[in-house]
């Protein structure tokens, strides 16, 4: 690492709250990336007649384990469990023995049922394990948020840079267009568009990208307009450095602080928008694990508070962590912070 980035890294670490938030968030995120190993209705590893099987990664037929029929193996079926045990085999299960789609038919009370040692956070109104759905829902929310943030930042920074750099008529027309575009009622449009197409992850990402890229244009444009007349930009020009290099090297970093300041907010708002669409029922396809859908269930089943409370706590913790990380990142990129004298 060169000295600048070392200093930035130190600056980031100096913000203890953001530093710990990053660790916590990364731990949660990486854990949720391996959701299949944490919550699944298939064992991670099966030993059967001296051979090894990994049902998490491969589909096996019931006949593989001595069953009669050539159907997909259901490892939760007592029949199959017995078959494997009688053959002297064993199964290594994930800590949560439910996939997000798995329906637990063996409930003590009608669904939604309260937390038990089996279903740690209870089940939802279709008898699916809440803990399993949370892990998958967290992953999909964060991945969606990150993808949307990165894409809209790239588009936003480029659009802002073009406006600030060229100025004049380009700037004028572009600004008016963005004003009109921002005037559109985004949520209604998303709902209408989501009812026209079959919403999938990619479709939703594309639709939201249509409206979220404008968030950064203003600040980036302003930074470019301001910075192109800086003395050190003039000095670089006098040194004979090319225009594009100047923009990327001297002007863009000025805009990056503003961008990075906005990014956590874009990320949280992306996650919030996805959650609210899911909550309203216009989001991800039916059956997808989603925090918004869990919130909606909590609203519909006030007698089952574990639904609403769980969704609220997870959303609250996730969004707070992201904001703290964003604050620390902003400090890290601020050349005026720390290192004085």
């Amino acid at each position, binding site marked *: 690492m060169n*000295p*600048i980035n070392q200093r930035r890294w130190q600056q980031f670490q100096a913000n203890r709250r953001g530093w710990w938030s990053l660790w916590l968030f990364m731990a949660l995120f990486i854990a949720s990336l391996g959701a299949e190993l944490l919550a699944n209705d298939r064992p991670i590893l099966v030993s059967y007649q001296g051979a090894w099987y990994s049902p998490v990664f491969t589909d096996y037929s019931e006949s593989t384990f001595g069953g009669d029929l050539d159907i997909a193996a259901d490892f939760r079926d007592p029949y199959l469990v017995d078959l494997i045990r009688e053959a002297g085999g064993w199964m290594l299960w994930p800590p949560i023995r439910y996939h997000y789609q798995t329906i637990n038919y063996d409930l003590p009370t009608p669904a939604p049922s309260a937390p038990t040692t089996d279903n740690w956070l209870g089940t939802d109104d279709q008898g699916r394990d809440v803990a399993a759905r949370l892990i998958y829902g967290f992953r999909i929310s964060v991945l969606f948020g990150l993808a949307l943030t990165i894409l809209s930042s790239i588009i936003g920074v480029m659009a802002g840079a073009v406006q600030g750099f060229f100025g004049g008529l380009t700037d004028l027309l572009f600004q008016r267009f963005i004003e009109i575009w921002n005037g559109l009622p985004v949520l209604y449009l998303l709902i209408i568009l989501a009812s026209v197409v079959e919403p999938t992850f990619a479709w939703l990402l594309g639709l939201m990208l249509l409206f979220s890229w404008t968030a950064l244009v203003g600040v980036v444009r302003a930074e470019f307009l301001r910075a192109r007349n*800086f*003395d*050190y930009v*003039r*000095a*670089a*020009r*006098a*040194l*004979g*450095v*090319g225009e594009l290099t100047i923009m990327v*090297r*001297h002007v863009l*970093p000025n805009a990056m602080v503003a961008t990075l300041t906005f990014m956590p907010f874009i990320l949280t708002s992306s996650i919030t928008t996805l959650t609210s669409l899911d909550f309203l029922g216009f989001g991800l396809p039916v059956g997808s694990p989603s925090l918004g859908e869990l919130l909606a269930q909590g609203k519909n089943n006030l007698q089952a508070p574990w639904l609403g409370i769980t969704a609220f706590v997870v959303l609250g913790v996730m969004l707070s962590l992201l904001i703290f990380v964003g604050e620390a990142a902003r400090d890290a990129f601020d*050349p*005026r912070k720390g*290192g*004085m*004298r």
Partner: protein
Amino acid sequence: MTAPLLEVTDLAIDFNGQATVRGVSFTLDRGETLALVGESGSGKSVSALSILQLLPYPTASHPAGSIRFEGRELLGAAEPDLIAVRGDRIGMIFQEPMTSLNPLHTVEKQIGETLLIHRGMDAPAARARTLELLELVGIADPESRLRSYPHQLSGGQRQRVMIAMALANEPDLLIADEPTTALDVTIQQQILELLSDLQQRLGMALLLISHDLGIVRRMADRVAVMHRGQIVEQGQIDAIFDTPQHPYTIELLNAEPSGRQEPVADDAPEVLAGNDIRVWFPIQRGLLRRTVGHVKAVDGVDLHVRAGETLGIVGESGSGKTTLGLALLRLIDSRGDIRFDGTDLRALDKATLRARRADIQIVFQDPFASLDPRFSISQVIAEGLRVHFPKLTETQLDDRIRSVLGEVGLDADTRHRYPHEFSGGQRQRIAIARALVLEPRLLILDEPTSALDRSVQSQIVDLLRALQSRRRLAYLFISHDLKIVRALAHRVIVMKDGHVVETGDVENLFTQPRHDYTRRLIAAALFNH
């Protein structure tokens, strides 16, 4: 014997627990002028601000000391008592007339405000008094100026309005914090004359804060020299100036840029020649942005510089000297002939021009703005090298950076630090190093010393002179500071409103100015010597 008007005893100021000012004591009698002198950061402004308790408390604190105004303690006084004193008994003028007036209020409102608060005047009475004050501070046509906003006034007029505000309630004490630093020399002189005239007429005490010894010598009765938060010496003005005791005072008095340039060899080749250079900015009006006229920032300037020679360009702000520098660098469009080494710079295409840029370099006025804060010193200097000498290896780059830093008098081991870790003078050296490393033939110096303290200024002048003789550099030295121009230039161009009013050898020009404007400029700049 009666008590003095203002008595500051053993004043101490801390910022965030760090000792900034220690043991400052001085007194001030009615009708007397005391000057607080020192370089930036010496604590003179904060000492003055603490008299009115205007520091950012509780970041700032006073661990010790007392400030007595007419026998009443101001330090730690209750807010209502302070308000009764501020603007009524003690008036204050700030350095920057641009920012010390509220841009959204008219002149009438700004001056009238203090009258309404302290005197309880009604609107017509306040208006009459405001007119009287504007006349007092010498604003022409005060009636129509009442409705002007600050941006419609010139720098000098704004400072006059500031003075009118400070004087509105006929204070017993006027604190003037660098009242003329931001102004042109001829305006400076007018403001100073106004201040001393008003002081005599109204019999106020004046606490003048300045780094400019010339102004101090002319204005003050007594002087207190501050250095690193302490008063190192104080006494009658003549005593201090004629027989300074403290080494710092002696250093300060000797800090004036001195010396003259050696003449240039007759056979020195001409480096830059400009013929009839014009920079006009169109004025556009109306919906269709029709061009209705031009602001002639630079209008028909001829100049030529030889190797090893310094051409000084002097003039007040707005005279077009900086624009001329940018035009010569081809950083803005211009018309007319600009020949560098015989090639017409204006005819070059972009790529060729970029390759030639190494030959002409520039050093800007503000060393805080001219270095990218995100670049380490080594990166700042390497940037141009990488463009013009792409074949250099990293080690060779580093060698060149270290040698150029040594040449401008900086420690080469500091090259991985960032600009904000350096002082203003050091940053200006870095900016010079950035230009020098490309081995230019011509260096355009755009007010390179005006943001610096006097003692640092003369160090930079010495450095520039040494570099010039070693490298046979041609300088285009843009400045409003005639003392420095005299120390550094061979020939001088005097600019006014985009035109050259006079040009000639530096000695001739200073001793026998022909043009009326030059004469005024020199009189204003050197009046205190």
